[in-house]
């Protein structure tokens, strides 16, 4: 866990990690979510997703600043999102780090389905998750990761006032897409 956090730190500060061997890394990945509640559809996205994979150790780390979510229906919605639910000031970062169930080091170019098991930290609360993702490996070595998963709000201590109960879904659907280059 600590090494993954260190990885994120290094990644964010832009330092080279070549000393640790061959890594796949990328930034500017796209992450979007939708909350499909009976009365209101909330959707937003961010292109500040960063990630690093160590194929030899079969480990990974992803991070994104929650404040970078944009594209809400209204500025009021955005304000509520950041101030009431995500508390982006207090918990500026969402992370997911762990290791893959399947072995990623020997993947051939093509499309694969693999599962990432790790700790998902949102709103300062950590939940262990197994998240399924599609990995496309191009001939030139570029790795593209696409995943859809849901985040139950109860896992991350995000409580919804009963008044807006019908406006926010209990599970938020998240869509992730990021390209990583062997470095």
């Amino acid at each position, binding site marked *: 866990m600590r090494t993954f956090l260190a990885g994120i730190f290094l990644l964010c500060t832009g330092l080279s990690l070549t000393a640790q061997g061959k890594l796949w890394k990328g930034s500017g990945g796209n992450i979007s979510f939708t909350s499909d509640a009976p009365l209101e559809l909330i959707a937003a996205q961010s292109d500040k997703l960063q990630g690093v994979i160590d194929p030899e150790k079969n480990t990974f780390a992803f991070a994104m600043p929650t404040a970078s979510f944009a594209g809400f229906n209204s500025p009021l919605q955005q304000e509520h999102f950041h101030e009431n639910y995500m508390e982006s000031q207090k918990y500026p970062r969402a992370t997911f780090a762990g290791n893959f*169930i*399947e072995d990623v080091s020997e993947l051939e170019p093509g499309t694969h389905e693999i*599962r990432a098991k790790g700790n998902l930290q949102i709103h300062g609360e950590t939940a262990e998750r*197994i998240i399924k993702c599609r990995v496309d490996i191009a001939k030139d070595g570029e790795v593209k990761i696409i995943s859809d998963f849901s985040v139950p709000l109860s896992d991350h201590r995000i409580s919804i006032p009963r008044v807006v109960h019908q406006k926010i879904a209990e599970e938020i659907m998240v869509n992730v897409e990021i390209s990583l280059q062997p470095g």
Partner: protein
Amino acid sequence: MRQALLLISILTALLPSSAQQMEFRKVKLPEPVRHATLDLLYTDRSGFLWMAAGCRLYRYNGLKFHETHTDTAGRPEDVISALYEDSAGKLWVGWQSGHISHVRRDSAFAYEPEEGTPSAAVVAWAQDEQNQLWMATYGEGLYVLAANGRWYQFGTEDGLPGLESYDLISCQNGVLLATDRGLVQASFEAEEKRVEVWDTDDGLSDQIVKSLFKSNEGVWLGYYEQQLDVLKNGKIRPAQQPPATDCHLVLRSGSNTWWLSEGGRLYKSRGESGWMQVDPGGEGRMRVEHLAVDHEEHLWISTNRGLFVTNQWQESLVEDQKVTALALAGDSLWYAHDGKLLFQDLSSGENQQVWEGEHVILNLFIDHLGRVWGGSFDAGLFMYNPATGASRVFDENFGIPNNNVLSVTGDSAGLWMGTLGGAGFIPFSNSRLGRPQVFAGEAGKPVQYIYAVATGAEGEVFLATDGDGILRKKGSGFEALPGDTGAGVVLDLTVDQEGRLWWIDPDGNLYSWTQGEGVQHLKAPEGERGAPAGVEAGPTGNICVFHEEGIHVYFPQEQHWTFYGSSFGFGELQPELHAQVLKDGRLYLGTSSGITSIDMSLLPGRSEPATFLMGVELFFKPVTGKRFAASENHLSFNYIGRWYTDPDRVRYRIMLEGYDLEWNISQNTSVTYPQLPPGTYTFKVVAGIDDHFPEEELQTWSFSIAKPWYLRWYSLVAAVLLTLAIIAIYMRLRLQRIRFRQEQEKERVRAQYEALKSQVNPHFLFNSFNTLMALIEDDRKEAGEYLEDLSDFFRNILQYREVDLYSLREELQIISTYLKLQEKRFGANLQVEIDVPQQYLDTRIPPLSLQLLLENVFKHNVISRSKPLRVKIFVEDEYLVVWNLYQEKSRKESSTGYGLQSIKKKYSFYSRKAVNVEQGADFFAVHLPILKNSDL
């Protein structure tokens, strides 16, 4: 009209699906778990349920939650994550923190092996065939407690693919461990760790194995994704397609498989018919945490909305409709509601209406071509062909005996029907129908009512009649079965797999018949069951008789009846006449409120509580021994009749043999006997219901209370001896005193006699008279005085002879008179000095003791002018001494020696000091002890 009836046969009216509703009961939880979620349920080897909520652990007996004190001091946030009872009966508790404890006498004690405890959550326990205890953790791999008492860890260096494990189960050689990266088989023998890993290359459907469950088929593997697999003899075969991902917990009971998905949803699968979601609370949004099956086959479901329990054997397939008839073909359950013919696809639970007639359908039968035949009340027989959708009605015009068709059955040869106008047979030839044949009884006799028809092997046909018992087909006609067939009214009949015919009368009594054994009459035991509605033979040979208030099952091998009534949820069964089908161990019952399906294999064979003596307490503290001291006489017994089916009905029959004279019936789960007398006792308890207490469940506990020391034999012997000794001593003392008194009296009498004798001693008188005569001549006056003194002296003697003791003063007065008399005789030759100090004058003395001594002195000594006699009376060292010069007479006076003897004896009565006699060369002295008043 009939044409109109035919036209009504229209199908497809999709009814709302209300398929397979389970009966769930919410269990009332006590404080403080009332609003908590039970994280863990566990059934121990005795069948008791253990439940954990956070750090709290409870044992549940169906009525009460008994809390076990857990050692969470300093770690109040810790959570119990695994429970396991080992083969020695020790309950192990694993915690989220990696802490381990075990339960002993209602308390959990920390378990701290030398090797230390893990720092990762304990997720599961198992015991292998060598009784080694294994422990799986989430983060530190696998541990085993070897026979040498040490823990060994299995890590990645030992071949484990990962350290995070989900489940653990024992297998042929060691244990199976479910991990993220395959299934691990681990064993430990002679300190050698062996690990074998199975992954997708070895046939696993998924890398992530989440749950393991053992059954006769093998070990079931529940995956994160993919189907369930079964592992047996090293081979993996696919078993079932699950409805969702993350197979968190697989549980199986009877022919049902249950499992739990990560979303907290509960699914069940019955046979091959697929999975269905089950919602215990009926309100949705419920998160299922854990499941357990108890020894009575109830399923316990802990959810975030409370604890639920269900009997798994019963589910309702159709509700709120009176179902008058049903028949089963494959997965298609055909049933009738009033005049409507419907069917339910058992695999999907969908209901469909296919036909509607005008009159109540009384029975259904599906022939070998899949055609549905139904008998109706007053509208004859109808046939519906599901393959073509065609339907047809047959009535008396076609040739059937009567339009009231109560029973339809048949085989490939044709269709048999029982009607109010006799029996009928429609032969099948290929797919065409032949002309009906009618059997309406012998010529000249009234037409028989046929209530039911049954066909057996080799073309046997039996008819249930109203009054003539059973008619059996013989040749082209029927003949009555010989033997006692009760009142002759047969309500229903059935033929079992061995060809034996069974039938019931309207009172619920059962009869059987075979060619070899003839008719047997099996009277049903007394009991409130309501009217019977039908009889069916089960797959294991059990015969089920359906009553309004339950199912009465006869077990032919044990010759035993068991009634499954309200305790089993059948109190308001209300089955419809003849509307029962038994297939593959599952019973489908048409009732006045729908269709109930019962898995007969899950019905507990025994409907009795199991009795457990939970503990014995001495003054409310647990005891270990069985022998008690006399003061340890306050004993309490705690017992439980475990019967989750209906714990409120459990009663206890208890007796303390040696104290109670008869059995007591109680509802309490404990009894206290205060102040038991010493003795040998046996406590006996057995739990039961409805006044039936199974002897084989009797629990006994013998003990003894010792007698107190004062009641033991040696104490009694000592007490008797002591009493005898006291009596003996008393008797002896009394005897002594009596003798003493006698002696004293004798002595006194003798003393008086001697005194009198001495005083009238002739010498004394002679001397006195000579002296008197001489005085008369010389001095008459003096003679008178002398005579006065003499008479004084005698008067004194007379006066005191009756007295035991008097004062020395009185004695001195008497001897002064006596000495006066003697002085007259001896003159100056006698010199008597008396020197007794004043303080001794009041001491006591036996009367005339001094006088006697003086008389002795005068008698034995020479008194003359040449040899005057000196006598002294004085007190020395608390002795009164009479001293005289010793001047022995040459001629000895005869002496009895009595005088001195008598004095000695008298003094021995009154004083411990003896009378001393001192004889010197020239003196003689007698020392008399001074008798003080205070000494007497």
